[in-house]
C-alpha cells in the first residue's frame, strides 16, 4: 500500500518545502499560492500527499489516515497531553520552526508568582489556542478552581481584563511576548517534527521514503512569528461600570469592518494594525476596543468579557448550538461578508440532497465522518438529519481536501462555490446564509450611561448598514 503523508500549510510550509526538495521528492506545487491541497511527487508517484492546517496533522496521523506527518511539536503535545494513548511516534526533530509556549500574564502587577494562583479561591481564567496543554498545566499546578477558554487565536489580547493567564506561543526568547504580556515560565520548547502513526511504524515498510528524509542535513532556523513584535503598544484598559467593551475582528473580516466604521463615523486608530496591536483606540467616549478572532466572540460576549462584538452569524449559530441558553443575540445585520454554510460531499456520491444522502448511508450501513470548522453546527445538523452513526472531525480550515479519504461530508462556508467545485465536491444542502452582525447580550443590566452609549453605537452602526 502506498505511503500517505500529511504536510503543513502556513508557517512551516516554506521550510518543509525546502526540506523535501533537498530530499529529492520533486513536489509539483507545494507553495503558499498552491491551488490544490493534493500534491504529486515525481520521486514517489504512488504516494498520497495532502496538505493540512498544521493543527490537524497530529490527529490525522494518530487516527491512521496518514502514515507520516510534519508539524510543530506544540500541536503533537496538544493532542497527547489529553489523549496519551493515541500518541504518534516522534521520528525526528527537524530543527526548523523553533519557538516556545509560555504561561503568561499581564505586565500590570497583579500576580507576583504563578504559585500564588494555586491558593486563589476564585476561578482562574486561562485562555489558549492549546486548551489541553493549558488544562494539564492547571491540574499540575493544582489550581483550586480554573476555567480553560479555548480560543482560535489572539490569546495574547485577553489578559488582564478578560483572563488571568494566557498560554501563548512565542519565539524561543521570551522577550518576544507582545501586547503587554510577561512570561511566568516556559511550558514547552518546540520545533517541526517528523511523526509517524504507531501502527504504520510497526507494520508498514516506510524505509524507502524515510531513507530520503534521513539523509537531509538540517540547519536550525527560527521563523519570526507575529509574536516577535515588541510590546510597545500596551496600556492596560481602564474599565468602569460605564465603559462599553467592543470586540473587532482580526483577519480578512477587517476590510468590511473598517468600511462600516468609516460610514458610521466611528474613528478607530491603528486598525488594522501593522504592528499586531490588539488594543486600538477610538474617538467614541467611554468605549474600549480589543481585536480578537471572530470565532471567539460569541463565547466572550456570553461570558461578559465584551458588551458588543462584530462577527459572522455562522459563529453565533455555532455558539448557540453548543449553548442554547446563552444570552448572546444578534443586534444589527451588516449584510456584508456574505457566505453560504453548506453541506458538501464527493462529486460521485449518488445523492443530490440530504435525504438521499441519508438513505445512501443507511443502504451502505456506513458510519459518516463529518469534517467541519463549525463543530456544533455540524453535530446538530447530523442529529437533526438523523445521520445515524456519525463522527464530527473538528478541522481548522482547508476542509475541502478531506474528502474522500479523510471525511465523507463537509459543513463549510462558501462565497461562490468555486473552491468546492475545484475539489470535485458537490453541495447537497444549504444550511443558512451568514453575514456580519453586531452581537450583544440580552438581559444584562447596565448603568444608564452605559445603556446610552451602547444604544448610540447600535444606532450609528445600524444607519451605516442601511446606507449604500
Amino acid at each position, binding site marked *: 500500500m502506498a505511503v500517505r503523508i500529511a504536510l503543513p500549510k502556513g508557517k512551516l510550509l516554506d521550510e518543509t518545502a525546502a526540506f523535501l526538495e533537498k530530499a529529492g521528492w520533486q513536489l509539483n506545487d507545494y507553495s503558499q499560492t498552491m491551488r490544490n491541497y493534493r500534491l504529486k511527487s515525481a520521486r514517489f508517484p504512488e504516494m498520497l500527499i495532502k496538505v493540512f492546517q498544521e493543527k490537524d496533522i497530529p490527529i490525522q496521523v494518530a487516527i491512521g489516515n496518514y502514515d507520516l506527518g510534519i508539524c510543530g511539536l506544540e500541536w503533537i503535545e496538544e493532542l497527547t497531553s489529553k489523549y496519551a494513548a493515541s500518541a504518534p511516534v516522534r521520528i525526528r526533530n527537524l530543527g526548523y520552526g523553533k519557538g516556545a509556549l509560555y504561561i503568561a500574564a499581564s505586565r500590570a502587577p497583579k500576580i507576583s508568582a504563578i504559585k500564588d494562583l494555586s491558593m486563589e479561591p476564585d*476561578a482562574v481564567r486561562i485562555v489558549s489556542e492549546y486548551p489541553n496543554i493549558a488544562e494539564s498545566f492547571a*491540574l499540575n499546578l493544582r489550581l483550586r478552581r480554573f476555567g480553560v477558554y479555548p480560543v482560535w487565536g489572539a490569546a495574547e489580547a485577553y489578559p488582564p481584563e478578560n483572563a488571568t493567564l494566557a498560554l501563548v506561543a512565542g519565539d524561543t526568547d521570551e522577550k518576544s511576548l507582545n501586547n503587554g504580556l510577561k512570561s511566568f515560565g516556559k511550558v514547552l520548547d518546540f520545533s517541526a517534527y517528523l511523526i509517524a502513526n504507531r501502527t504504520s511504524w510497526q507494520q508498514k515498510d516506510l524505509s524507502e521514503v524515510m531513507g530520503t528524509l534521513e539523509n537531509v542535513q538540517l540547519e536550525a532556523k527560527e521563523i519570526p512569528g507575529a509574536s516577535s513584535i515588541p510590546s510597545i503598544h500596551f496600556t492596560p484598559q481602564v474599565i468602569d461600570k460605564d465603559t462599553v467593551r467592543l470586540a473587532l475582528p482580526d483577519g480578512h473580516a477587517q476590510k468590511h469592518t473598517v468600511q462600516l466604521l468609516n460610514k458610521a463615523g466611528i474613528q478607530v486608530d491603528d486598525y488594522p494594525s501593522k504592528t499586531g496591536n490588539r488594543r486600538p483606540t477610538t474617538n467614541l467616549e467611554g468605549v474600549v476596543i480589543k481585536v480578537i478572532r471572530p470565532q471567539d466572540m460569541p463565547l466572550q460576549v456570553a461570558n461578559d468579557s465584551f458588551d458588543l462584538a462584530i462577527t459572522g452569524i455562522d459563529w453565533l449559530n455555532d455558539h448557540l448550538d453548543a449553548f442554547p441558553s446563552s444570552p448572546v443575540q444578534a443586534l444589527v445585520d451588516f449584510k456584508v461578508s456574505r457566505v453560504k454554510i453548506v453541506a458538501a460531499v464527493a462529486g460521485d456520491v449518488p445523492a443530490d440532497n440530504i435525504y438521499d444522502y441519508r438513505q445512501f448511508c443507511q443502504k451502505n450501513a456506513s458510519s459518516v465522518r463529518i469534517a467541519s470548522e463549525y463543530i456544533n453546527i455540524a453535530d446538530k445538523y447530523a442529529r437533526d438529519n438523523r445521520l445515524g452513526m456519525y463522527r464530527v472531525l473538528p478541522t481548522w480550515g482547508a476542509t475541502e481536501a478531506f474528502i474522500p479519504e479523510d471525511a465523507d461530508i463537509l459543513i463549510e462556508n462558501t462565497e461562490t462555490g468555486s473552491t468546492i467545485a475545484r475539489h470535485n465536491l458537490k453541495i447537497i444542502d444549504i444550511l443558512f446564509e451568514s453575514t456580519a452582525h453586531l452581537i450583544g447580550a440580552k438581559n444584562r443590566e447596565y448603568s444608564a450611561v452605559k445603556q446610552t452609549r451602547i444604544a448610540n453605537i447600535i444606532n450609528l452602526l445600524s444607519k451605516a448598514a442601511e446606507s449604500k
Partner: protein
Amino acid sequence: MRVQKCKGTCDLTTEEMRRFRLIEGAFRDSCIKWGYQEVRTPTIEYLHLFTSTGTLTPNTLGKVYSFLDWDGWSGERVVLRPEGTIPTVRLYIDEMADKKPARLFYVINTFIFEETGKENREKWQCGVELIGADSVTADVELITLSLEVLKTLGLKNVELKLSHAGLIRALLTGFGLSPEEQGKVFDQILDGDVAVLSRLKAETPDLARLLTPLLEMKGSNAGFLRNLKTLFSRDLPDFIPELDNFIAVAELLTEIGVKYRIDIASGRGFEYYTGMIFQIFKDDVKLGGGGRYNALIPLMGGENAPASGFALQMNTLMNIIEMPPQSGPEINQILMTVTGDRPEAVKSAHNAADSLRKDGFIVSVKVDNEDKSEYKWLIEVSEAAPEFVIYNQTDKGKQTARTIGELLKLLGEKSGS
C-alpha cells in the same frame, strides 16, 4: 452495522444483577442496623469540587469525564463523579452541616477513564462516611462495619492492613519535604527509587536509618508500634502523637478480637487522608478500604468537622462472592396459561395470579409461545370446571382446583417441596 457496547463499560446481566443486589442488600442491612442513613448524590457534579480540594492527584483529575454542559458557556465544567466521598461531603455541607455525628452510606457508580478499555471505566461502590466524629472508637467502628459486611457475604480469610497518613506525613516533614512533594516522594521511596533514597540518606542520615524498620517490617499488634515509638521519640518528636493515635486504634481492634497487619507501606496514595488508613484484601485482591480525612470538609468550605469513611468495590466483590442456591419464591415460579382467548378466562387467570402474588409467589401469565421449561409450576386456566389444572414440572404431578382458595391452599402446601 452491529450495536456495540461503549468501550470500557459493563453490562450487568440478570445473573450479575443477582450478585449486585446480594452485595447491596448485605451492605444496606448492616449499615441500617448500625444506625447509618442512606443518601444518593447526583452523577454529575461541578469539576471544581474535585480540583479545589487538592485531594485527587493531577493524574487522576486528568482521567475524569469532564465536559461543558449545554449551559456551560461560562466555562464551568461538569464531571461524572470520579469518587463518592467528595459528593457526599458536599451534600453534608449543603444540607445537614449541623448534624454531628452524621452516619451516611450510599451505593453509587463512579467514572474514571482507563486507558486500555479492558477494565471498567464505570465502577460501583458501597460507601460509608462518618462525619463529625474524631475518636478512635469512630475509626474502629468503620473497620468493624466493613468487616461485618464481608462476613455476611460469606468471605473468609480476608486480610486487614493498617497504615496511618499522619505518621507518614510527620516522617516526610522530618525529611524537610513540603506537603506538595510528600505524596510523590513517598511513592518513590516505596518503589525503591535509589536516587531518592540516597538523597534522603545523605541529607538526614538519622531519619533515613529508620526507613527500613518503618516501611519494610510488618507488625500484627500494637507492640510493634510501641517498638517504633522507642526508635522515633528522639529524632522525630512530631511523630509521637500520630503514633499514639495509631497505637490506640490497634489496641482497641485487638481488644475486640479483630486481626490485622500493620503495614505502613500500604498507605501509598495517602494524600486524601490525615489519620488511620485501612485496606481489606482477599488473596491479594483489594476489596475496599478507607480512613480518616479530617482536612476535607474545611477545604471544601465547610466548618471544621472531622470525618472518616470507607468504600467497598462492588465490581471486585461480584467476581468473588459465592451465590447461595436460589431460594424462597424464586424456585416456585409459576406460569399461567389460558385455554382459549375468551376475556372471562383471561380475567380469571389474572385474578388467580394476583392472589398468588400476594401470597409471595412469582407468577407470569403466558404470552406468545413462551418456553414453559423454566417454570416449576404450570397452571392451566379454563372456563369449564375444574377451573385450575396444576402441573408440577419437577415431579410431573398433576392436580386440580375448583377455586382460587383451593389453588392457594394446594400450592401453599406444595411450595418448597
